[in-house]
C-alpha cells in the first residue's frame, strides 16, 4: 500500500470519527464498559488463582475438640499431634480464644451480638500448619481418619477439603464468566457494527461520489475498517487504564477473603494485558468488517 494512500486512509478515518463524535463516544463508552467487566473478571481470576496456588502449597488441619473432653484425652490429642513427622506449627485455641478471635474478625460493631449468647458455643481446637516442604510426604486423608479415631475429637477440617470446595466454585464461576465474556464480545461486535453502519450512512453521498470517480471498493472500505481498529485501540487503552486505576485504589486497601486478612493483589501480567488489548482491537475490526460486509453495498 502506498504511503500516500495510508495517510489518506488514516486522515479519512479520523475525519469520520470527528464528524460522528457523539456516535463514536457512545460506542466507545459502551465498548469500554463491556471490556472493563471482562477485565475485572480476568483480574479477579488472576488474583484468586494466585491465592489458591499459594494456599495449595501448604496443608493445615483444624482439630475441633468436644466440650466435655477430659484433660487426659486432650493431652493424648496434643501428644499425637506433636509426634507427627515434619516441620509444623501447632497452636491450641481454647473456647475463650476462639470467641476472642471471632469477635476480632466481626469487628467492634458486630461483636456486640455475641455478648447476648448465654454460653460460648465455639469448640476448643488445635490448628496444625505443615509448611510447603512437607506437603508431598503427607497423606491428608489418612491423617484425618487417624485423628477422627481419637477420643474427644469432635471434627476435623483440612485445608485440602475447603481448597477443593473453593476450586469447584472458582471453576463454575470461570465457566459462567467465559459465557458472559462471550456474550459481552457479541455485544461489543454489535455496538461496533452499528457505529460503523451509522458512519457509512452519514457518508453515503460521499461514497456514491467516490464510486463515480473511480474509487475501488477497498479504497472506500479501508477508512471504515481503520475507524473500527482505532475505536478498538482506544477502548483497549481506556480499559487498561481504568483497570490500572481500580487496581491502585484497591491495592492500598486491606482486603479480606474467606476471613483471611491482607491478601496481596497483583495486576494483570503483560501477556494478559496484551490479550485484553488485542481482543479490543480485534472486536473493533470484526465489527467494522461485519458492517462493511453486510450493509455496504457499493
Amino acid at each position, binding site marked *: 500500500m502506498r504511503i500516500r494512500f495510508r495517510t489518506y486512509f488514516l486522515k479519512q478515518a479520523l475525519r469520520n470519527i470527528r464528524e460522528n463524535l457523539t456516535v463514536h463516544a457512545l460506542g466507545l463508552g459502551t465498548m469500554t464498559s463491556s471490556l472493563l467487566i471482562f477485565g475485572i473478571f480476568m483480574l479477579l481470576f488472576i488474583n484468586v488463582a494466585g491465592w489458591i496456588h499459594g494456599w495449595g502449597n501448604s496443608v493445615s488441619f483444624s482439630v475441633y475438640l468436644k466440650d466435655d473432653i477430659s484433660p487426659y484425652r486432650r493431652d493424648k490429642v496434643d501428644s499425637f499431634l506433636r509426634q507427627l513427622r515434619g516441620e509444623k506449627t501447632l497452636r491450641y485455641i481454647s473456647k475463650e480464644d476462639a470467641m476472642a478471635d471471632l469477635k476480632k474478625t466481626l469487628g467492634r460493631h458486630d461483636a456486640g451480638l455475641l455478648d447476648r449468647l448465654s454460653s460460648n458455643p465455639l469448640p476448643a481446637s488445635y490448628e496444625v500448619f505443615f509448611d510447603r516442604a512437607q506437603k508431598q510426604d503427607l497423606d491428608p486423608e489418612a491423617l484425618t481418619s487417624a485423628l477422627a479415631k481419637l477420643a474427644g475429637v469432635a471434627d476435623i477440617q483440612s485445608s485440602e477439603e475447603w481448597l477443593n470446595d473453593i476450586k469447584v466454585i472458582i471453576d463454575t464461576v470461570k465457566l459462567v464468566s467465559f459465557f458472559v465474556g462471550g456474550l459481552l464480545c457479541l455485544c461489543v461486535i454489535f455496538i461496533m457494527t452499528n457505529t460503523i453502519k451509522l458512519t457509512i450512512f452519514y457518508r453515503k453521498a460521499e461514497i456514491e461520489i467516490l464510486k463515480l470517480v473511480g*474509487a475501488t471498493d477497498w479504497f472506500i472500505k479501508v477508512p471504515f475498517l481503520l475507524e473500527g481498529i482505532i475505536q478498538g485501540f482506544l477502548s483497549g487503552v481506556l480499559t487498561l487504564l481504568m483497570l490500572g486505576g481500580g487496581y491502585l485504589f484497591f491495592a492500598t486497601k486491606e482486603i479480606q477473603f474467606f476471613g483471611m486478612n491482607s491478601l496481596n493483589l497483583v495486576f494483570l501480567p503483560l501477556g494478559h494485558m496484551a490479550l485484553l488489548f488485542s481482543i479490543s482491537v480485534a472486536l473493533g475490526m470484526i465489527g467494522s468488517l461485519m458492517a462493511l460486509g453486510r450493509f455496504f453495498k457499493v
Partner: protein
Amino acid sequence: MIQLFHLFKKYGPHIALDDVNLRITKGEFVFVTGPSGAGKTTLLRLIFGAEKPERGYILINSINLTRISRSKMDLLHRKIGFVFQDFKLLPRRTVFENVAIALEVTGEPTRWIRERTRRTLELVGLEDKEKVYPLSLSGGEQQRVAIARAIVKGPMILLADEPTGNLDPDLTREIMALFRSIHQKGTTVVIATHSRDLLEDIPYRTILLQRGKLSGDTCA
C-alpha cells in the same frame, strides 16, 4: 471510441432503451436529445457503466462494459467524467475538496493533486472560491465545480446529463463555452439535453431519442 450495439434496457414494464445502435468517434462533441423519459439519462448511465443493459453491449475503446469486472470498471471510471444535473456536490467539503476527491482515488502525490486541482479551478474560473463551501455558491458556480470534478483527472470521455437544466441563458452560454474548450483539448463530449435553444446555438452532431428508440442522428 464509444460503440453501442442493439442496446436494450427496461425498468420493470417500462422500456427505457430499445435496440439502440450508436457510434461516437474519439474527440467528437455530441448532443443526445429528446423529450423527458426518452432514455437520455439511461443512455449516459449505460455508457458510464453505472448500469448494465438487459441485451446488447457497449464498447469503450474496445473494452466491453457488459463483461468488465468491477475493479476494471472502477479504473475505467477514472477515465470517464460525469456531470450530473443535480451537481452531486458534497456540502460539507470545500470547493477544492470536492474537485480533489476525483484525484484522491488515484493515490497520486498530494502536491500533484493540489497543483492539478488548482489548475482545473482556474480553468473553470473558480480559483478564488477554493475554500468556499458549495451551498454558498450560485447555481452556475456549483455546476462549474461539478464540471471541474469531472475534468480534473483529464478524462477521455466527458458525459453531462442536462448540465444547463437549472441555469439561466447567460450561465448556460458560459457553461457551454467551458464544454467547448474541454472538447478542443481532445476530450469526447456527450451532453444529454432537452433544450432546443442549446442545439440551435451550437452546431454539433445531435442524436434524437424518442421512447427509447434512436429516431434521428444529424451525422447519419
